[in-house]
Protein backbone atom coordinates (compact mmCIF):
# COMPACT_ATOMS: atom_id res chain seq x y z
CA UNK A 1 0.00 0.00 0.00
CA UNK A 2 1.26 3.50 -0.90
CA UNK A 3 1.19 5.71 2.19
CA UNK A 4 0.65 9.43 1.66
CA UNK A 5 -0.28 12.39 3.81
CA UNK A 6 -2.21 15.52 2.86
CA UNK A 7 -0.30 18.65 1.94
CA UNK A 8 -1.23 21.74 3.99
CA UNK A 9 -4.25 23.60 2.58
CA UNK A 10 -2.18 26.80 2.13
CA UNK A 11 0.21 24.94 -0.15
CA UNK A 12 -2.68 23.54 -2.18
CA UNK A 13 -4.28 26.97 -2.49
CA UNK A 14 -0.91 28.34 -3.58
CA UNK A 15 -0.78 25.80 -6.40
CA UNK A 16 -4.33 26.67 -7.44
CA UNK A 17 -3.67 30.41 -7.72
CA UNK A 18 -5.56 31.78 -10.71
CA UNK A 19 -7.37 28.46 -11.21
CA UNK A 20 -10.78 28.89 -9.66
CA UNK A 21 -12.60 25.87 -11.06
CA UNK A 22 -11.25 22.59 -9.77
CA UNK A 23 -12.00 18.92 -10.46
CA UNK A 24 -11.08 16.52 -7.64
CA UNK A 25 -9.65 13.05 -8.16
CA UNK A 26 -9.41 10.50 -5.35
CA UNK A 27 -8.54 6.82 -5.44
CA UNK A 28 -10.51 3.77 -4.32
CA UNK A 29 -7.44 1.82 -3.23
CA UNK A 30 -4.55 3.05 -1.07
CA UNK A 31 -5.67 6.67 -0.79
CA UNK A 32 -9.07 5.57 0.51
CA UNK A 33 -7.56 3.27 3.13
CA UNK A 34 -4.94 5.85 4.10
CA UNK A 35 -7.73 8.46 4.27
CA UNK A 36 -6.22 11.06 1.99
CA UNK A 37 -8.31 10.49 -1.14
CA UNK A 38 -11.48 8.64 -0.21
CA UNK A 39 -15.04 9.95 -0.41
CA UNK A 40 -14.90 11.71 2.96
CA UNK A 41 -11.63 13.51 2.19
CA UNK A 42 -12.87 14.62 -1.25
CA UNK A 43 -16.05 16.05 0.27
CA UNK A 44 -14.02 17.78 2.97
CA UNK A 45 -11.66 19.24 0.37
CA UNK A 46 -14.62 20.43 -1.74
CA UNK A 47 -15.93 22.28 1.32
CA UNK A 48 -12.58 23.91 2.08
CA UNK A 49 -12.09 24.95 -1.55
CA UNK A 50 -15.59 26.45 -1.63
CA UNK A 51 -14.77 28.42 1.55
CA UNK A 52 -11.70 29.72 -0.24
CA UNK A 53 -13.78 30.92 -3.16
CA UNK A 54 -13.14 28.03 -5.52
CA UNK A 55 -15.74 26.13 -7.50
CA UNK A 56 -15.54 22.36 -7.55
CA UNK A 57 -16.81 21.27 -10.97
CA UNK A 58 -16.97 17.63 -9.99
CA UNK A 59 -15.17 14.74 -8.40
CA UNK A 60 -14.21 11.19 -9.12
CA UNK A 61 -12.83 8.34 -7.08
CA UNK A 62 -10.65 6.48 -9.56
CA UNK A 63 -10.61 2.69 -9.38
CA UNK A 64 -7.64 2.92 -8.95
CA UNK A 65 -5.79 6.16 -9.68
CA UNK A 66 -2.62 4.46 -10.88
CA UNK A 67 -4.20 2.60 -13.80
CA UNK A 68 -3.48 4.69 -16.89
CA UNK A 69 -5.95 3.14 -19.32
CA UNK A 70 -8.67 2.87 -16.67
CA UNK A 71 -8.14 6.47 -15.62
CA UNK A 72 -8.42 7.73 -19.23
CA UNK A 73 -11.75 5.91 -19.47
CA UNK A 74 -12.97 7.38 -16.20
CA UNK A 75 -11.87 10.88 -17.26
CA UNK A 76 -13.83 10.46 -20.52
CA UNK A 77 -16.95 9.60 -18.50
CA UNK A 78 -16.50 12.89 -16.58
CA UNK A 79 -15.53 14.92 -19.65
CA UNK A 80 -17.94 17.83 -19.13
CA UNK A 81 -16.97 18.42 -15.49
CA UNK A 82 -13.29 18.16 -16.33
CA UNK A 83 -13.55 20.38 -19.41
CA UNK A 84 -15.16 23.13 -17.37
CA UNK A 85 -12.38 23.00 -14.73
CA UNK A 86 -9.18 25.08 -14.80
CA UNK A 87 -7.21 22.34 -13.05
CA UNK A 88 -7.42 18.92 -11.41
CA UNK A 89 -6.45 18.25 -7.82
CA UNK A 90 -5.16 14.71 -7.35
CA UNK A 91 -5.76 13.36 -3.87
CA UNK A 92 -4.01 10.00 -4.08
CA UNK A 93 -0.26 9.45 -4.33
CA UNK A 94 2.70 10.54 -6.45
CA UNK A 95 2.02 7.75 -8.91
CA UNK A 96 -1.64 8.73 -9.04
CA UNK A 97 -0.77 12.38 -9.71
CA UNK A 98 1.58 11.48 -12.54
CA UNK A 99 -0.81 8.91 -14.02
CA UNK A 100 -3.48 11.64 -14.04
CA UNK A 101 -1.05 14.05 -15.71
CA UNK A 102 -0.58 11.42 -18.43
CA UNK A 103 -4.32 10.91 -18.79
CA UNK A 104 -5.35 14.55 -19.21
CA UNK A 105 -4.21 17.80 -20.83
CA UNK A 106 -5.57 19.80 -17.89
CA UNK A 107 -3.04 21.10 -15.35
CA UNK A 108 -2.87 18.70 -12.38
CA UNK A 109 -1.76 19.40 -8.78
CA UNK A 110 -0.86 16.82 -6.14
CA UNK A 111 -2.72 17.29 -2.84
CA UNK A 112 -0.51 14.83 -0.98
CA UNK A 113 3.07 14.01 -0.10
CA UNK A 114 3.83 10.35 -0.73
CA UNK A 115 5.86 8.78 2.06
CA UNK A 116 6.42 5.05 1.71
CA UNK A 117 5.11 1.61 0.87
CA UNK A 118 3.49 0.32 4.01
CA UNK A 119 1.34 -2.15 5.80
CA UNK A 120 -1.91 -1.25 7.56
CA UNK A 121 -1.23 -2.20 11.17
CA UNK A 122 -4.65 -1.13 12.31
CA UNK A 123 -7.12 1.61 11.39
CA UNK A 124 -5.15 4.75 10.56
CA UNK A 125 -1.78 3.22 11.53
CA UNK A 126 0.74 2.43 8.83
CA UNK A 127 4.26 1.06 8.93
CA UNK A 128 6.94 0.76 6.29
CA UNK A 129 8.36 -2.69 5.60
CA UNK A 130 9.67 -2.75 2.02
CA UNK A 131 11.82 -0.15 0.24
CA UNK A 132 11.34 -1.75 -3.19
CA UNK A 133 15.12 -2.04 -3.55
CA UNK A 134 14.73 -4.60 -6.32
CA UNK A 135 17.14 -7.01 -4.67
CA UNK A 136 15.32 -8.98 -2.00
CA UNK A 137 17.44 -10.59 0.72
CA UNK A 138 14.64 -11.29 3.23
CA UNK A 139 15.41 -15.00 3.06
CA UNK A 140 18.70 -14.36 4.89
CA UNK A 141 17.34 -11.89 7.44
CA UNK A 142 14.39 -13.71 8.97
CA UNK A 143 11.85 -11.76 6.89
CA UNK A 144 12.80 -8.48 8.56
CA UNK A 145 14.20 -6.17 5.88
CA UNK A 146 17.64 -4.78 6.73
CA UNK A 147 17.36 -2.17 3.96
CA UNK A 148 14.18 -0.73 5.44
CA UNK A 149 14.35 -1.49 9.15
CA UNK A 150 17.99 -0.46 9.68
CA UNK A 151 18.22 3.34 9.48
CA UNK A 152 21.41 2.98 7.49
CA UNK A 153 20.25 0.04 5.38
CA UNK A 154 23.25 -2.00 6.49
CA UNK A 155 23.56 -5.53 5.15
CA UNK A 156 26.28 -7.21 7.21
CA UNK A 157 25.10 -6.49 10.73
CA UNK A 158 24.44 -3.56 13.06
CA UNK A 159 26.45 -0.40 13.51
CA UNK A 160 27.43 0.55 17.06
CA UNK A 161 24.27 2.55 17.56
CA UNK A 162 21.95 0.02 19.20
CA UNK A 163 20.80 1.55 22.49
CA UNK A 164 20.57 -0.53 25.69
CA UNK A 165 16.79 -0.43 25.17
CA UNK A 166 17.24 -2.04 21.75
CA UNK A 167 16.37 1.12 19.86
CA UNK A 168 18.16 2.91 17.02
CA UNK A 169 20.34 5.85 18.03
CA UNK A 170 18.92 7.77 15.07
CA UNK A 171 15.47 7.74 16.64
CA UNK A 172 14.64 6.44 20.14
CA UNK A 173 11.15 5.47 18.90
CA UNK A 174 12.57 3.12 16.28
CA UNK A 175 13.61 -0.45 17.02
CA UNK A 176 17.12 -1.41 15.92
CA UNK A 177 16.36 -3.40 12.77
CA UNK A 178 19.42 -5.58 13.21
CA UNK A 179 18.46 -6.45 16.77
CA UNK A 180 15.05 -7.56 15.50
CA UNK A 181 16.75 -9.68 12.85
CA UNK A 182 19.23 -11.11 15.35
CA UNK A 183 16.57 -12.00 17.91
CA UNK A 184 14.28 -13.57 15.32
CA UNK A 185 17.02 -15.77 13.88
CA UNK A 186 18.27 -16.67 17.34
CA UNK A 187 14.75 -17.75 18.31
CA UNK A 188 14.57 -19.84 15.13
CA UNK A 189 18.01 -21.30 15.73
CA UNK A 190 19.23 -20.06 12.35
CA UNK A 191 21.74 -17.35 13.32
CA UNK A 192 24.26 -18.95 10.97
CA UNK A 193 22.34 -17.50 8.01
CA UNK A 194 23.88 -14.12 8.96
CA UNK A 195 27.44 -15.40 8.85
CA UNK A 196 28.16 -15.25 5.11
CA UNK A 197 29.38 -11.94 3.69
CA UNK A 198 26.48 -10.01 2.15
CA UNK A 199 27.43 -8.49 -1.20
CA UNK A 200 26.66 -4.83 -1.91
CA UNK A 201 23.27 -4.41 -3.52
CA UNK A 202 23.14 -3.26 -7.13
CA UNK A 203 21.41 0.06 -6.61
CA UNK A 204 21.38 1.29 -10.15
CA UNK A 205 20.32 -1.65 -12.26
CA UNK A 206 17.23 0.39 -13.21
CA UNK A 207 18.56 3.84 -14.15
CA UNK A 208 15.94 6.52 -13.71
CA UNK A 209 12.43 5.21 -14.01
CA UNK A 210 11.89 1.53 -13.27
CA UNK A 211 9.66 -0.43 -15.62
CA UNK A 212 8.47 -4.01 -15.82
CA UNK A 213 6.91 -5.73 -18.79
CA UNK A 214 5.23 -9.05 -18.13
CA UNK A 215 4.08 -9.46 -21.72
CA UNK A 216 4.97 -12.88 -22.99
CA UNK A 217 6.00 -14.06 -19.53
CA UNK A 218 4.66 -17.38 -18.33
CA UNK A 219 2.54 -17.20 -15.21
Amino acid at each position, binding site marked *: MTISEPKPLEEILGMLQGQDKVFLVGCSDCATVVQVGGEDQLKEMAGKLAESGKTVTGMLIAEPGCHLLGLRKEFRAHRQEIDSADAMLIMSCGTGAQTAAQATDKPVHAATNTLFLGCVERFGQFREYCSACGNCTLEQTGYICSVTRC*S*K*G*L*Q*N*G*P*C*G*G*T*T*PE*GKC*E*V*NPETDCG*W*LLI*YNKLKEQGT*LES*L*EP*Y*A*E*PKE*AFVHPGQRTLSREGKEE
Partner: protein
Amino acid sequence: MSLRPVLQSDTFVVTSEVGPPKGVAMDHVLEEAKLLKPLVHGINVTDIQAAAMRVGSMATCHLIKDLSAEPVLQMVCRDRNRLALQSDLLSAWILGIENVLCLTGDHPTLGDHKGAKPVYDLDSVQLLKVAKGLNEGHDMMGNELEGKPDFCLGAVVTPGGNPVEMQIMKLKKKVEAGAEFIQTQAVYDVNEFAAFMDKVSHIKAPILAGIVLLKSAGMARYMNKNVAGVFVPDELIKRMAAAGEADKAAKAEGKKGDSQVKTSIEIAAELIRGLKPFCRGVHLMPLGWGHHVPKVLEAAGL
Protein backbone atom coordinates in the same frame (compact mmCIF):
# COMPACT_ATOMS: atom_id res chain seq x y z
CA MET B 1 56.46 4.18 9.34
CA SER B 2 53.22 2.42 8.47
CA LEU B 3 51.21 0.98 11.31
CA ARG B 4 51.50 -2.57 9.94
CA PRO B 5 55.02 -3.47 11.17
CA VAL B 6 54.17 -2.10 14.62
CA LEU B 7 51.00 -4.20 14.71
CA GLN B 8 52.99 -7.27 13.69
CA SER B 9 55.63 -6.68 16.37
CA ASP B 10 55.33 -7.24 20.13
CA THR B 11 55.11 -3.50 20.75
CA PHE B 12 52.16 -2.25 22.79
CA VAL B 13 50.45 -0.09 20.15
CA VAL B 14 49.29 3.43 20.95
CA THR B 15 47.15 5.48 18.60
CA SER B 16 45.35 8.74 19.17
CA GLU B 17 42.77 10.75 17.31
CA VAL B 18 42.40 14.30 16.06
CA GLY B 19 39.33 15.98 14.58
CA PRO B 20 39.66 18.47 11.71
CA PRO B 21 38.17 21.91 12.32
CA LYS B 22 35.00 23.45 11.00
CA GLY B 23 36.72 26.07 8.90
CA VAL B 24 40.20 26.27 7.47
CA ALA B 25 42.21 27.17 10.59
CA MET B 26 44.45 24.10 10.69
CA ASP B 27 47.04 25.30 13.23
CA HIS B 28 45.35 23.73 16.25
CA VAL B 29 44.99 20.24 14.79
CA LEU B 30 48.53 20.30 13.35
CA GLU B 31 49.97 21.45 16.69
CA GLU B 32 48.20 18.51 18.31
CA ALA B 33 49.63 16.15 15.68
CA LYS B 34 53.16 17.50 16.29
CA LEU B 35 52.73 16.96 20.01
CA LEU B 36 51.45 13.39 19.52
CA LYS B 37 53.96 12.40 16.85
CA PRO B 38 56.80 11.17 19.11
CA LEU B 39 54.36 9.44 21.50
CA VAL B 40 52.02 7.39 19.31
CA HIS B 41 52.25 4.95 16.41
CA GLY B 42 49.34 6.41 14.51
CA ILE B 43 47.07 9.45 14.51
CA ASN B 44 43.49 8.81 13.42
CA VAL B 45 41.80 11.66 11.61
CA THR B 46 38.02 11.55 11.90
CA ASP B 47 35.83 11.73 8.79
CA ILE B 48 33.19 14.44 9.28
CA GLN B 49 32.74 13.18 12.82
CA ALA B 50 29.27 13.21 14.30
CA ALA B 51 28.04 14.19 10.81
CA ALA B 52 28.97 17.83 11.55
CA MET B 53 30.40 19.34 8.33
CA ARG B 54 34.12 20.18 8.54
CA VAL B 55 37.51 19.82 6.81
CA GLY B 56 38.03 16.36 5.32
CA SER B 57 40.07 13.52 6.73
CA MET B 58 42.16 12.98 3.59
CA ALA B 59 43.54 16.52 3.35
CA THR B 60 44.26 16.56 7.09
CA CYS B 61 46.00 13.18 6.92
CA HIS B 62 48.14 14.51 4.08
CA LEU B 63 49.24 17.51 6.17
CA ILE B 64 49.98 15.19 9.10
CA LYS B 65 52.07 13.00 6.79
CA ASP B 66 54.01 16.14 5.82
CA LEU B 67 54.95 16.40 9.51
CA SER B 68 56.44 12.89 9.18
CA ALA B 69 53.78 11.56 11.52
CA GLU B 70 51.70 8.47 10.70
CA PRO B 71 48.07 9.29 9.89
CA VAL B 72 45.17 6.82 9.96
CA LEU B 73 42.49 7.92 7.52
CA GLN B 74 39.02 7.32 8.92
CA MET B 75 36.58 6.60 6.13
CA VAL B 76 32.85 6.37 6.70
CA CYS B 77 30.17 5.00 4.37
CA ARG B 78 27.72 7.82 5.03
CA ASP B 79 28.72 10.37 2.40
CA ARG B 80 30.16 8.58 -0.62
CA ASN B 81 28.94 5.90 -2.98
CA ARG B 82 31.15 3.01 -4.13
CA LEU B 83 32.72 5.08 -6.91
CA ALA B 84 33.78 7.90 -4.61
CA LEU B 85 34.89 5.54 -1.81
CA GLN B 86 37.24 3.65 -4.12
CA SER B 87 38.47 6.79 -5.86
CA ASP B 88 39.16 8.48 -2.51
CA LEU B 89 41.06 5.42 -1.32
CA LEU B 90 43.32 5.56 -4.39
CA SER B 91 43.69 9.33 -3.93
CA ALA B 92 44.65 8.85 -0.29
CA TRP B 93 47.34 6.36 -1.25
CA ILE B 94 48.98 8.70 -3.77
CA LEU B 95 49.03 11.37 -1.02
CA GLY B 96 51.08 9.01 1.14
CA ILE B 97 48.32 7.75 3.41
CA GLU B 98 48.90 4.08 4.28
CA ASN B 99 46.38 3.31 7.03
CA VAL B 100 42.61 3.37 6.70
CA LEU B 101 39.98 2.77 9.38
CA CYS B 102 36.66 1.76 7.78
CA LEU B 103 33.46 2.70 9.64
CA THR B 104 29.75 2.94 9.00
CA GLY B 105 29.54 6.60 10.04
CA ASP B 106 27.10 8.48 12.27
CA HIS B 107 23.74 9.11 10.63
CA PRO B 108 23.21 12.63 9.17
CA THR B 109 20.27 13.22 11.51
CA LEU B 110 22.73 13.24 14.44
CA GLY B 111 24.75 16.05 12.84
CA ASP B 112 24.36 19.66 11.74
CA HIS B 113 22.94 19.02 8.25
CA LYS B 114 20.02 16.85 9.25
CA GLY B 115 18.43 16.82 5.79
CA ALA B 116 21.57 15.44 4.07
CA LYS B 117 20.94 12.36 1.97
CA PRO B 118 22.51 9.36 3.74
CA VAL B 119 24.44 7.24 1.25
CA TYR B 120 25.53 3.94 2.88
CA ASP B 121 25.93 2.46 -0.61
CA LEU B 122 28.44 0.06 0.97
CA ASP B 123 28.53 -0.94 4.63
CA SER B 124 31.75 -1.10 6.65
CA VAL B 125 32.32 -4.81 5.96
CA GLN B 126 31.86 -4.26 2.24
CA LEU B 127 34.17 -1.21 2.30
CA LEU B 128 36.89 -3.31 3.96
CA LYS B 129 36.52 -6.00 1.33
CA VAL B 130 36.61 -3.44 -1.47
CA ALA B 131 39.71 -1.76 0.01
CA LYS B 132 41.41 -5.13 0.31
CA GLY B 133 40.55 -5.73 -3.35
CA LEU B 134 42.30 -2.48 -4.26
CA ASN B 135 45.35 -3.77 -2.36
CA GLU B 136 45.15 -6.88 -4.53
CA GLY B 137 45.11 -4.77 -7.68
CA HIS B 138 41.47 -4.67 -8.74
CA ASP B 139 38.40 -2.52 -8.18
CA MET B 140 35.19 -4.01 -6.77
CA MET B 141 34.01 -4.90 -10.28
CA GLY B 142 37.18 -6.87 -10.88
CA ASN B 143 38.77 -4.33 -13.21
CA GLU B 144 42.55 -4.36 -13.01
CA LEU B 145 44.31 -1.35 -11.48
CA GLU B 146 47.36 0.28 -12.98
CA GLY B 147 49.51 0.39 -9.86
CA LYS B 148 48.00 -0.79 -6.59
CA PRO B 149 47.97 0.55 -3.02
CA ASP B 150 48.95 -1.46 0.05
CA PHE B 151 46.73 -0.12 2.80
CA CYS B 152 46.87 -1.34 6.37
CA LEU B 153 43.13 -1.64 7.04
CA GLY B 154 41.37 -1.24 10.35
CA ALA B 155 37.87 -1.61 11.74
CA VAL B 156 35.96 -0.78 14.90
CA VAL B 157 33.86 -2.68 17.41
CA THR B 158 31.67 -1.71 20.35
CA PRO B 159 32.55 -4.06 23.25
CA GLY B 160 29.61 -2.65 25.22
CA GLY B 161 27.16 -3.38 22.41
CA ASN B 162 23.97 -5.07 23.45
CA PRO B 163 23.91 -7.94 22.69
CA VAL B 164 27.65 -8.12 22.24
CA GLU B 165 27.29 -11.36 20.23
CA MET B 166 25.77 -9.32 17.40
CA GLN B 167 28.83 -7.02 17.45
CA ILE B 168 31.20 -9.98 17.51
CA MET B 169 29.45 -11.61 14.57
CA LYS B 170 30.10 -8.45 12.53
CA LEU B 171 33.64 -8.10 13.85
CA LYS B 172 34.43 -11.57 12.52
CA LYS B 173 33.14 -10.52 9.11
CA LYS B 174 35.28 -7.37 9.24
CA VAL B 175 38.45 -9.32 9.91
CA GLU B 176 37.59 -11.87 7.21
CA ALA B 177 36.99 -8.96 4.83
CA GLY B 178 40.44 -7.51 5.45
CA ALA B 179 40.73 -5.66 8.76
CA GLU B 180 44.28 -5.96 10.14
CA PHE B 181 43.61 -4.05 13.35
CA ILE B 182 40.64 -3.17 15.53
CA GLN B 183 40.02 -0.02 17.54
CA THR B 184 37.18 -0.19 20.04
CA GLN B 185 34.52 2.22 21.22
CA ALA B 186 35.30 3.82 24.60
CA VAL B 187 35.95 1.35 27.43
CA TYR B 188 35.60 2.27 31.12
CA ASP B 189 35.33 -1.09 32.83
CA VAL B 190 38.41 -3.33 32.82
CA ASN B 191 36.56 -6.47 33.97
CA GLU B 192 33.89 -6.13 31.30
CA PHE B 193 36.56 -5.54 28.68
CA ALA B 194 38.45 -8.63 29.83
CA ALA B 195 35.22 -10.65 29.47
CA PHE B 196 34.78 -9.23 25.98
CA MET B 197 38.33 -10.18 25.02
CA ASP B 198 37.58 -13.73 26.17
CA LYS B 199 34.65 -13.85 23.77
CA VAL B 200 36.74 -12.66 20.82
CA SER B 201 39.69 -15.00 21.31
CA HIS B 202 38.89 -16.40 17.83
CA ILE B 203 39.52 -12.94 16.30
CA LYS B 204 43.16 -12.83 15.32
CA ALA B 205 43.53 -9.13 14.47
CA PRO B 206 45.16 -6.99 17.20
CA ILE B 207 42.60 -5.10 19.28
CA LEU B 208 43.31 -1.60 20.62
CA ALA B 209 41.06 -0.60 23.51
CA GLY B 210 39.36 2.77 23.12
CA ILE B 211 40.04 5.43 25.75
CA VAL B 212 37.91 8.58 25.78
CA LEU B 213 39.14 11.22 28.23
CA LEU B 214 36.37 12.20 30.64
CA LYS B 215 36.15 15.99 30.85
CA SER B 216 33.50 16.22 33.55
CA ALA B 217 30.88 14.22 35.41
CA GLY B 218 28.30 15.82 33.11
CA MET B 219 30.03 14.47 30.04
CA ALA B 220 30.09 10.98 31.55
CA ARG B 221 26.40 11.14 32.35
CA TYR B 222 25.69 12.47 28.85
CA MET B 223 27.54 9.55 27.28
CA ASN B 224 25.71 7.05 29.47
CA LYS B 225 22.42 8.49 28.32
CA ASN B 226 23.18 9.23 24.66
CA VAL B 227 26.09 7.19 23.35
CA ALA B 228 25.08 3.62 22.59
CA GLY B 229 27.49 1.00 23.90
CA VAL B 230 29.38 3.35 26.25
CA PHE B 231 28.95 3.01 29.99
CA VAL B 232 30.89 5.02 32.56
CA PRO B 233 30.62 3.36 36.01
CA ASP B 234 29.25 5.41 38.92
CA GLU B 235 32.54 5.33 40.75
CA LEU B 236 34.30 7.22 37.93
CA ILE B 237 31.44 9.71 37.66
CA LYS B 238 31.73 10.37 41.42
CA ARG B 239 35.45 11.06 41.11
CA MET B 240 34.89 13.48 38.25
CA ALA B 241 32.04 15.15 40.17
CA ALA B 242 34.26 15.66 43.24
CA ALA B 243 36.98 17.12 41.00
CA GLY B 244 34.38 19.40 39.44
CA GLU B 245 33.39 20.64 42.92
CA ALA B 246 37.06 21.33 43.73
CA ASP B 247 37.44 23.32 40.49
CA LYS B 248 34.30 25.28 41.31
CA ALA B 249 35.66 26.12 44.78
CA ALA B 250 38.98 27.22 43.26
CA LYS B 251 37.15 29.41 40.79
CA ALA B 252 35.22 31.06 43.65
CA GLU B 253 38.58 32.00 45.12
CA GLY B 254 39.63 33.44 41.77
CA LYS B 255 41.96 30.55 40.95
CA LYS B 256 41.91 28.24 37.95
CA GLY B 257 41.36 24.73 39.27
CA ASP B 258 42.89 21.74 37.52
CA SER B 259 41.26 18.94 39.49
CA GLN B 260 39.08 17.70 36.63
CA VAL B 261 42.04 17.58 34.24
CA LYS B 262 44.16 15.77 36.83
CA THR B 263 41.42 13.29 37.67
CA SER B 264 40.67 12.69 33.99
CA ILE B 265 44.34 11.94 33.32
CA GLU B 266 44.49 9.71 36.40
CA ILE B 267 41.40 7.73 35.33
CA ALA B 268 42.65 7.30 31.75
CA ALA B 269 46.08 6.14 32.98
CA GLU B 270 44.51 3.68 35.44
CA LEU B 271 42.33 2.30 32.67
CA ILE B 272 45.28 1.87 30.32
CA ARG B 273 47.31 0.08 32.99
CA GLY B 274 44.33 -2.14 33.80
CA LEU B 275 43.53 -2.92 30.15
CA LYS B 276 47.10 -3.49 29.05
CA PRO B 277 47.29 -7.21 29.95
CA PHE B 278 44.16 -7.92 27.90
CA CYS B 279 44.80 -6.10 24.62
CA ARG B 280 47.46 -5.30 22.05
CA GLY B 281 47.26 -1.55 22.46
CA VAL B 282 45.12 1.46 23.17
CA HIS B 283 43.44 4.05 20.99
CA LEU B 284 43.00 7.44 22.66
CA MET B 285 40.12 9.70 21.76
CA PRO B 286 40.89 12.94 23.62
CA LEU B 287 38.06 14.95 21.94
CA GLY B 288 39.93 18.27 21.96
CA TRP B 289 42.08 17.41 24.98
CA GLY B 290 44.97 16.17 22.82
CA HIS B 291 47.38 18.38 24.75
CA HIS B 292 46.75 16.21 27.82
CA VAL B 293 47.63 12.96 26.01
CA PRO B 294 51.38 13.17 26.81
CA LYS B 295 50.54 13.26 30.53
CA VAL B 296 48.11 10.36 30.20
CA LEU B 297 50.73 8.22 28.51
CA GLU B 298 53.38 9.21 31.03
CA ALA B 299 51.08 8.38 33.94
CA ALA B 300 50.21 5.06 32.27
CA GLY B 301 53.90 4.24 32.02
CA LEU B 302 53.93 4.12 28.22
